């Protein structure tokens, strides 16, 4: 059997891919940061390909180290007060967290 390979070929790490991943991660990188990440991520992923040498057919993925996890009873406990929960917010407003606009106003008369 052929050894497992991570990809038919290594995904090319270029500016477009770094910018796409940065968007997924909500990071606004400037141009020099994108250039640096292209080089560094490329090298790290090349190293990670080493995993392809290991035969993992029939090996289950590790899903947790806590076989004996014990959940606490689902009972109401005292938590933070509203004032405490809002105490560290950069822009608290009317008892909540204010954020900038994220929807466009509906166009009238379509």
């Amino acid at each position: 059997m052929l050894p497992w390979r991570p990809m038919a070929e290594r995904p090319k790490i270029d500016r477009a891919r770094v910018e796409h991943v940065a968007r997924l991660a909500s990071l606004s990188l400037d141009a020099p940061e994108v250039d640096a990440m292209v080089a560094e991520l490329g090298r790290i992923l090349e190293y990670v390909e080493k995993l392809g040498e290991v035969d993992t057919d029939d090996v289950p993925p590790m899903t947790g180290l806590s076989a004996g996890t014990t959940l606490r009873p689902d009972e109401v406990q005292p938590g933070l007060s509203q004032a405490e929960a809002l105490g560290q917010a950069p822009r608290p407003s009317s008892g909540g967290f204010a954020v900038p606009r994220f929807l466009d106003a509906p166009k009238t008369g379509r």
Partner: protein
Amino acid sequence: MLPSFTVEGLAESVRSGNVTAVEVAEAVIARIDARDPTLHSFLTRAGDALLDQARAVDDKRARGIPLGPLAGVPVALKDALSTRGLRTTCGSNILEHYLPPYDATVVTRLREADALLPGKTNMDEFAMGSSTEHGAFGPARNPWDRARSPGGSSGGSAVAVAARMTPAALGSDTGGSIRQPAALTGIVGLKPTYGRVSRYGLVAFASSLDQIGPFATNVRDAARVLSVIAGHDPRDATSRDEPLRDYAAACGASVRGLKIGVPDEYFSSGLDPEVEASVRDAIGRLVADGCVVKKLALPHTAYAVASYYVIATAEASSNLARFDGVRYGLRVDAARLGEMYGRTRDAGFGAEVKRRILLGTFVLSAGYYDAYYLKAQKVRTLIAKDFDAAFAEVDAIVSPTSPTPAFLLGEKTGDPLAMYLNDVYTLPASLAGIVGLSVPVAATKSGLPVGFQISTPHFREDLALTIGAAVEATSPATGAEPKVG
């Protein structure tokens, strides 16, 4: 006059009344004032709160109320641990002014044990690093050679203990962040079993790997601190309801007849010859004490770094999504929500954190999950099975903690992969969730400490402490202190 500056020495002296907790607190303040300006182990000091805590201990004693097991004992806290009302930055600009509204469970337990909490220690940003150079507030320095790194990410805690500013400290270990800085600064550092200590209130880096543990100048002191912080916590579903062992007693138990495994893979290329010689000497001393040495193989060791950096970055990319400028921390305003997120995170995170978020986001992204993340978790299973098979044959596995002594500040910052490879001996135990203890065994010719790692099965901290105490009893490094002040 202070008695010996150890957990045990100070606890006994405060209990017996030979010294007051206020005198201990004043001594700690004086030591930090004198020593920390050149070492930078503290990011935030407790100020008057430390003296208030000390007065409360002295008052309790005066009124005949029983004292906690760490009464009057200073314990510094890595700045990843939430402290109610005391700034908790996690080494990041994004949390520069963050005041947590609650205490981490370990902090609550230290307070209940009447410990003194002198402050928050320097670290790599979000614990991502092995040198304490990736923090937003400047590096910590190794007290044995100020041009060198103390290791990381819990470097500030290690330095504060190594330079005797505090007899104990807490750190967190995700891939070696307690053991490696302990080794590089010549002190004892313990990563307990995953699930032994509650992670509630620890700022999350990689949730399947993070574990809190103690630093101290000797094994017995580390055991004393572990006894206070260990145990099930209903607030952390991954903490286990496994009975505690008598960790203090374990430090006095005999090692005669214990089987010690020496894995070939940990004595391969890249290992500094002086480190190897010191570790082999320590193994020889264990044999003289009656241990039986067995060679063994941990065949998947070579894949630990690759597996770890996929899994840890994937978990980090998810955990750090919470830093979005809305509920706490830094916010950089913008007209649109998405733009506010991006600008806040770009301004708030440093280069290493961004690198790991991007790597983690990439390995979880559509089309790559199976090839990277799932593959890494399968390899992790094999690494854990290596240890299971080994522990069927031996009681403990011993090795160097780090392949080299302390490296120079700046030596590895330009090469992220070289920095990651430095963790080759500590990552496997993290992936398997087992115990790892580092104990100083020697100094190199140039005077740098060498650490000896003892790995034991899940929930067998007692066994690691037994062997660690035996190593310490015959170690030429025992009692060595760096020149400070």
